[in-house]
């Protein structure tokens, strides 16, 4: 901006000088014509014309010298150079009809030369008028203008700086509030954050609140899980305690009674052991501590094995086990883990079934995935419980599962194993009619996440 100011000032100054020179030249020409007419250059230099010259020079804040055709100074308003010869180049040029003007900003001076022509038809050059001017007065208004402009610019600059600092401060205030709120929330108070001042801060607030919500849920479920685990582990211990107390309280008892009680205690210990094993598996699954042992496997064979192993259990309540295979399926799987996952599903299907019911396992595949469907004619799962069945220790009917001896971790483990294979597990159910679990797993295992 300052550069523009300087350039403009220079331009204004030049323009001002030029216009001053033009008007002075015009005035000079008038006077000189008058002087020529009155015979000034024929040796008739009268006092009136000289006085007019002096006045003009004074008005212009300058000096006028008149030079004749022989370059001799015949009049000098400073009365110093009369009689000398002004042989400078600008005068030589003027004698040939050229106009010269020269402005020296540094010394604040300006000079111009103009030819004086005779009034007859020859219009020959009979002399030259040489004018020196001090330009301080011409420059003054422009210099002042420049000073004012610079002052204005400086003031403007200062004001703008202040204004933008203030603006910045107020703009950033909500951001600071946001930062403070987030800090407070992350300290553990779970207080929702709300800074609606800007769309951006609102969005950040909302995103943060969602994260906070998820954290809260996570926290909650963690707490629930811990208390669940404690409860589950405690239950068999309590039973053992009761049995042992009764035994000890009985004093003299028949050996058969001891044997019975010991059998019960043994069962409880088994249950406890199973719970602990399942927990360990789950925990290891969660931490990705168990590596996946992928090998190309004949899935059909594995499915048949599972059904064969579970047949005795199904027979107890006369539940029919069916296996349906639409094609031979070869896939990259960890056969031990997948067997466990499917076993859990089939076990559940048998457990939560009617007497004389059925369990159907079907295996199908397309070019990308293979599908294992486990359907049963069991009691079904209520709609509101469907999304929770895969949660750890979740049981729809607590009493029922205790009696049938589950740990509540089976589906969680199955889901974990399916996830490790980068597959998906879904559940469909209708109360009173039955439940179907569908497992979908990629045929080819890709290492990436």
């Amino acid at each position: 901006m300052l550069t523009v100011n300087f350039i403009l000032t220079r331009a204004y100054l030049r323009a001002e000088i030029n216009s001053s020179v033009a008007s002075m030249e015009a005035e000079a020409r008038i006077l000189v014509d008058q002087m020529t007419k009155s015979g000034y250059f024929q040796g008739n230099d009268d006092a009136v014309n000289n006085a007019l010259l002096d006045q003009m020079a004074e008005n212009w804040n300058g000096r006028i010298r008149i030079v004749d055709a022989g370059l001799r100074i015949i009049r000098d308003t400073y009365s110093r150079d009369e009689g000398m010869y002004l042989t400078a180049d600008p005068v030589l040029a003027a004698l040939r009809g050229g106009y010269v003007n020269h402005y020296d900003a540094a010394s604040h001076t300006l000079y111009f030369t103009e030819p004086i022509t005779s009034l007859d038809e020859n219009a020959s050059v009979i002399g030259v008028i040489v004018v020196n001017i001090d330009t301080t007065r011409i420059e003054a208004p422009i210099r002042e203008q420049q000073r004012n402009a610079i002052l204005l610019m400086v003031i403007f600059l200062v004001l703008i700086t202040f204004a933008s600092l203030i603006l910045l401060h107020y703009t950033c205030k909500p951001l600071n509030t946001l930062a403070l709120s987030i800090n407070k929330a992350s300290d553990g108070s779970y207080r929702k954050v709300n800074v609606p001042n800007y769309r951006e801060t609102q969005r950040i607030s909302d995103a943060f609140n969602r994260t906070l919500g998820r954290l809260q849920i996570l926290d909650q479920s963690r707490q629930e899980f811990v208390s669940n685990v404690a409860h589950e582990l405690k239950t068999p211990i309590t039973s053992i305690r009761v049995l042992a107390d009764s035994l000890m309280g009985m004093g003299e008892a028949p050996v058969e009674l001891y044997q019975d009680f010991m059998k019960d205690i043994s069962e409880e210990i088994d249950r406890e052991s199973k719970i602990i094993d399942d927990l360990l598996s789950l925990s290891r699954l969660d931490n990705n501590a168990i590596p996946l042992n992928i090998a190309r496997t004949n899935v059909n064979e594995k499915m048949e094995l599972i059904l064969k192993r579970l047949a005795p259990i199904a027979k107890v309540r006369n539940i029919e086990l069916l296996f349906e295979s639409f094609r031979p399926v070869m896939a990259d799987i960890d056969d031990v883990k997948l067997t466990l996952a499917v076993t859990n599903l089939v076990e559940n299907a048998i457990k939560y079934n009617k007497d004389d019911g059925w369990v159907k396992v079907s295996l199908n595949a397309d070019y990308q995935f293979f599908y294992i469907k486990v359907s049963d004619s069991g009691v079904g799962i209520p709609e509101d419980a469907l999304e929770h069945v895969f949660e750890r220790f979740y049981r729809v009917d607590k009493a029922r599962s205790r009696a049938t001896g589950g740990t509540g971790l089976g589906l969680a483990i199955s889901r974990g194993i399916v996830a490790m294979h980068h597959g998906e597990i879904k559940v469909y159910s209708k109360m009173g009619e039955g439940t179907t679990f569908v497992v979908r797993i990629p045929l080819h295992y890709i290492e990436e996440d």
Partner: protein
Amino acid sequence: MRGIMQRIHAFRKALPFLLAVAMLLPSLRPAFAATAEKEEEAEVSRIYYVSSDGTRLLSCQYELQSSGDEAIRELFTAICGGNFSDGNSAVPSGVTLNHIAWQEDSLVLYLEGNYPEAGTAEETLCRLVIVKTLLAKAGVESVIINVNNEPLKSADGSEVGRIRESDFLMDVATSPDETRKVIVTLYFANENGTALVTEDIMAELSMDETIESGVMRLLIAGPTEKDHRATIPQGVSLLSVSVRNRICYVNVSGAFTSQDNPVSQMLSVYSIVNSLSILADVDQVQLAVDGSSDITMQENISLAAPLSADWSLVEQ
């Protein structure tokens, strides 16, 4: 084979040394040349001429072959009808130098031929190049020219006489120390401080000083005549002065209203107003003290409005 390779290697090794010697050789030459030149002693002079379009005075170097009076002739010949690549000689070719003489501190030239007409630029330039070219060699103050056995005359018939280099101004620009003399009338106080008296002074003003500022400067400086008294208190300085629409605006420093005034404030004010009012482009004077005109001096003189001269205060 081996012999050649060895020779090439040797040459390669010697190359830098050879180059160094080759570069040093020329610098040895001046030592030889200097001694040779001393015998020749060609002097360089400057000769003047005019540009082709006649608008500029030019010069170039010229090597003199002769010395003494012969050199003068030689120089004259050089500037007279000589061949210049970018100009013409200022001395017409028909002019010849008959003989030269020495007179006190002047070189007298006896010229013959078609010397330019008096009063023309041609004649002035001819004189100029003669003076500038010859005086440096001649070692004198001035040149006297005779043409066709007659002393050189100006257009009005008078003899030109001694021509000095200082007769010619080569620069249009006016230096700052060149002043102009203007006679101004200043109003100071009389001995008793009862009335104003005049002093006509030859003011020397530089180009950047207006006549108004010159008048103020001299008023502040004080009177020159013995029984006149200053009207402006000590320590007053002029802050600004300008003329607009025939009113002269004068701004002085605060010391103007001080009580330490040799005369009455009435005389102080009107010495300024009267001195400025007699100038051609001033009718009235608007005074200000430290920028403010909202002041009333003693004897109820208000500075608010422009003041006109009061001739009644002047001693008759």
